[in-house]
C-alpha cells in the first residue's frame, strides 16, 4: 500500500531536478575521474499527506526541498502520479515559492513566484517537461533579471519564455538596460 509513497517521493525528487541517469557527459579532454554519485534529495515540511487512492502527496508548511542541483522553498507542495504509474506528471509549489538553482555554467539562478507548476508529458514521442512560474514571477541570474506575467522554463530544450516580459540585462554593476514589452527607460537624449 505504501509503495506508492515511495514512488511518489522518488519521482518527486527526480522531477524537481531532472533525471540524470547514466554517466554524465564531461567536457572534451576531461580526465577519467569517476562520476560523482548523486547526493540524496531531502524534503522537509511541517506536515504531509499521502493519498494512496488519488496517487498524490501534499507537503504542507515551510516546505524545503534540498538537492545538489536545486533548492526550493514554498508553503505547499503537491505532487501526483498518473493512474498508469511511471514518472510523476505534476508538481505544484504554492505560496512564497523560492527556487535557487544554477545554470549550465554554474552561475546561480534565483527565482520567486506565488506558484510554480511542473508538468511532464510525452506526446507523439516528444517529451514536454515544463516549469511555469506565475503570480509575480521573477528570475534573477548573474546577467539577467526578469519579471513577467508568466515565466515558462522548458527543461527539455533548456529555454525560458516570458509572457509580457520586463527583462533587465545587467551589463555591469553600474548600468542596466530594460528590454522587451515592459516599461522601458527612455534613452538619454543625445
Amino acid at each position: 500500500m505504501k509503495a506508492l509513497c515511495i514512488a511518489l517521493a522518488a519521482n518527486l525528487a527526480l522531477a524537481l531536478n531532472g533525471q540524470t541517469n547514466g554517466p554524465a557527459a564531461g567536457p572534451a579532454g576531461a580526465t577519467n575521474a569517476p562520476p560523482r554519485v548523486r547526493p540524496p534529495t531531502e524534503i522537509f515540511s511541517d506536515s504531509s499527506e499521502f493519498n494512496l487512492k488519488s496517487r498524490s502527496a501534499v507537503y504542507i508548511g515551510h516546505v524545503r526541498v534540498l538537492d545538489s542541483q536545486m533548492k526550493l522553498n514554498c508553503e505547499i507542495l503537491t505532487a501526483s502520479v498518473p493512474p498508469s504509474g511511471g514518472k510523476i506528471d505534476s508538481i505544484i509549489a504554492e505560496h512564497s515559492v523560492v527556487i535557487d538553482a544554477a545554470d549550465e555554467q554554474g552561475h546561480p539562478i534565483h527565482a520567486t513566484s506565488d506558484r510554480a507548476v511542473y508538468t511532464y508529458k510525452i506526446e507523439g514521442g516528444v517529451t514536454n517537461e515544463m516549469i511555469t512560474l506565475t503570480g509575480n514571477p521573477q528570475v534573477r541570474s548573474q546577467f539577467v533579471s526578469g519579471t513577467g506575467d508568466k515565466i515558462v522554463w522548458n527543461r527539455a530544450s533548456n529555454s525560458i519564455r516570458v509572457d509580457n516580459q520586463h527583462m533587465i540585462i545587467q551589463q555591469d554593476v553600474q548600468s542596466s538596460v530594460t528590454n522587451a514589452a515592459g516599461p522601458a527607460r527612455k534613452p538619454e537624449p543625445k
Partner: protein
Amino acid sequence: MRNKRQLWPILCGTLATLAINATAQPAADSEGLLNFKAALENHPAPYETQIKTLLEGDKAFLQSGGLIVLTGAKVRTFGTNGAAEMIALAPHCIFDSGGRMVSSTGFLQVQSADGKFLLEGEGFTLGQTNALLILSNRVHTVVRFAPGTVTQP
C-alpha cells in the same frame, strides 16, 4: 487487567470480524500480548495467498472499542513474490480495528527495503479505508539515488 484467557477470544473475535488474520503469544509479564501479528491486506488473485500488508507489534494491549495499543509496531509490505518492499516503524501506536486505522502521536519512520527512500515524522494516521497517510509534524523525506545516477557536471 483482564485475564489473558479472556482477552484471546476478544482479540480473535474482533479480528475475525474484520477478516484479519492475527496471531499473538501471551506475554511473560501478563501485560499485553507478545509478538502481535495481523495481516491487514492480501494481494488480489492470483496471489491472494500472499500477504501484502502485515501489522506487527512487540506487545499488544487490547482496549475497549476494538482498539489495540501496540508497542514496537511495524507495518511491512510485500510484493507478490513475498519480497519485502517497505517497513514502517513506530515505537508506540494505536490500531483501531473497527476503523481500520493506525495512528500515534509519536514517531514514525517509513523506509523502503532497498534503502532509497526514507520518510519520518511525528504524529501520524494511516487509514486503510481512505488510503490516506497523514504525518502531522516535522516531516522529513530522504530520497537516495541508484549508484548509476550521477550529478550533472
